């Protein structure tokens, strides 16, 4: 039955990727940019929780809340200072800036917290579940991660379908110019997108660090990149796509670790990206973006 355990743990890891991928895919869909620093927001979220819980001795839930607030503010600030002035710039310039921001966050964290690994205390306190006569063991983190991700996913879909802001986001992602003519505040909509994406990153950070309880300035980098792979896999710009891509990627990674080679699991994940780009560059649920001529 260990296969099922690997599978469920894969789904759990995949749910974290999905949460991060949501941020990537929304920002990509609306601002048409790859926010390279998105993964590092996770790391900032992790450190925030660490400080609140371990340094200040506050309860976990407060840690998560503070992290959500800090990350949201950070995300919006980054957008305003670094990305907003570059709306008319070449995609290359925006990408380089985003890489700069990512690098900046990592190195600020390095200066503040040092390179040593911090031991993260899990924010989850529910007990592990044992199924099928103890053949399948689910840690509390696994259960919480899956549940939280599904709830957020559904909530986000409802928000986009039902709320005015959500509709504005869809409109901006379709056509920025037309949306502006329809009286939609494009800048505000983009800021909201960054806020939501960063808040999700904070939650992803809490879950990630609880499941893998080590924290360094580079904690967010790899999961961030993998989540981008997930977003591409599912179809960049598509919210359900990010979710499906995230889960699939988590499962692929966990099964590769279990059955092929733990050192090569990352390589396999990236090989997936290259294969997807070769076979179906638009991903599972993505639609073709063609340039206007």
């Amino acid at each position, binding site marked *: 039955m260990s296969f099922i355990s690997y599978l469920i743990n894969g789904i759990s890891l995949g749910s974290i990727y999905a949460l991060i991928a949501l941020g990537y895919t929304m920002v990509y869909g609306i601002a048409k940019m790859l926010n390279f620093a998105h993964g590092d927001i996770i790391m900032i979220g992790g450190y925030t929780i660490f400080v609140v819980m371990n340094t200040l001795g506050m309860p976990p839930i407060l840690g998560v809340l503070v992290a959500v607030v800090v990350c949201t503010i950070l995300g919006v600030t980054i957008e305003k200072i670094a990305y907003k002035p570059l709306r*008319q710039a070449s995609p290359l310039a925006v990408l380089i800036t985003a890489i*700069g921001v990512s*690098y900046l966050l990592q*190195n600020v964290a390095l200066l503040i917290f040092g390179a040593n690994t911090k031991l993260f205390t899990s924010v989850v306190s529910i007990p592990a579940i044992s199924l099928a006569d103890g053949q399948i063991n689910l840690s509390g983190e696994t259960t919480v991660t899956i549940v939280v991700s599904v709830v957020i996913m559904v909530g986000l879909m409802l928000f986009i379908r039902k709320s005015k802001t959500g509709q504005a986001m869809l409109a901006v992602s379709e056509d920025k110019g037309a949306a502006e003519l329809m009286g939609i505040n494009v800048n505000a909509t983009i800021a909201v997108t960054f806020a939501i994406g960063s808040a999700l990153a904070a939650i992803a950070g809490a879950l990630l660090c609880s499941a893998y309880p080590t924290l360094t300035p580079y904690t967010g980098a790899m999961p961030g990149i993998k989540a981008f792979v997930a977003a591409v896999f599912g179809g960049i710009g598509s919210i359900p796509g990010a979710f499906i891509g995230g889960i699939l990627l988590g499962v692929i990674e966990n099964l590769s670790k279990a059955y092929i080679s733990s*050192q090569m699991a*990352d*390589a396999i994940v990236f090989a997936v990206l290259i294969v997807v*780009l070769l076979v179906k560059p638009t991903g599972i649920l993505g639609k073709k973006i063609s340039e206007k001529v």
Partner: protein
Amino acid sequence: MDKLKKMNKTTKSNFITYAMVIVAYIIMQVLVSAGVVSSLMTGLLVPLCIYVMMAVSLNLTVGILGELSLGHAGFMCVGAFSSAVFSVATVDTITSVPLRFFIAIVIGAVAAAVFGVILGIPVLRLRGDYLAIVTLAFGEIVKNFINVVYLGMDGKGFHFSMKDTGSLNLGEGGKVIINGAQGITGTPKNATFTIGIVIILITLFIVLNLIHSRAGRAIMAIRDNRIAAESVGINITKYKLMAFTISASIAGVGGVLYAHNLSTLTALPKNFGYNMSIMILVFVVLGGIGNIRGSIISAVILTLLPELLRGLNDYRMLIYAIVLIVMMLFNWSPRAREFREKYSIKRFLNRKSIEKEEA
């Protein structure tokens, strides 16, 4: 790049670039033989050549092709390991050092170029962001892979394993070439400052001549406007792949120099990881995207500066990050552009002359 490039102007500009490298070489040689250069500094000469090559190589991708590669350290790693395997394997059989090193360079260049093609074909058709992420992924894969590879050689040929040296089953007199995470030891130290400079000059010859030829114009046309380039019959994939492969190949040669400058070669995040790719990107951005000479100068300055100002070392990467952001904002944000338009004499003169033409 000189904005007004008449034929003779380009030649002149290229000449200045070559001359700059040669003069720097002569000055360094004189200083070294006069004994006024610290051993720390002499130890930096070959790495300096490597960084210059990496910067020129990346600028070909970023500035001329207009795509971002974050895996240049990966190409460097491929070049380093493929050539080091060759050199260690043939250190007893090919006794002529220049010949062996020459073949090693060719092997490093070709191996990196092959990976350039493999990555380029699927990715160069897509939007630029994908190339960045795929090359980044590629760099990580290469680094991870090298760390689990064991390669040995005996009378019967090469033995390969991904477990440990024992499972190589080497025969009598066999030797381990790649020892997993411990990498390759005993690579001959063939890379010298002089060879480095010669290779830089050859690289510049290739890159500058490429830029100012039919192929280079096609590549830059694609960068400036892909749809228009297609409409005048330019084969997009061919030229993108050409630029990217040449760039990868130069990075591979940088790796060859790197491998043959150290007695132990390992694939660490420090030398072949993301940080290295970013550092090279900083060289390119600071030197001016598309400006080959600028890349050389900024690679030299940014390599020497932290060594001269040791105290700066802790903040080095922080400064790199700020350089990337500030340079982009300075170049592109509307407010910064306004500012520069207002205070740029060059623009002012240029506009005047256009107005005159119109009148």
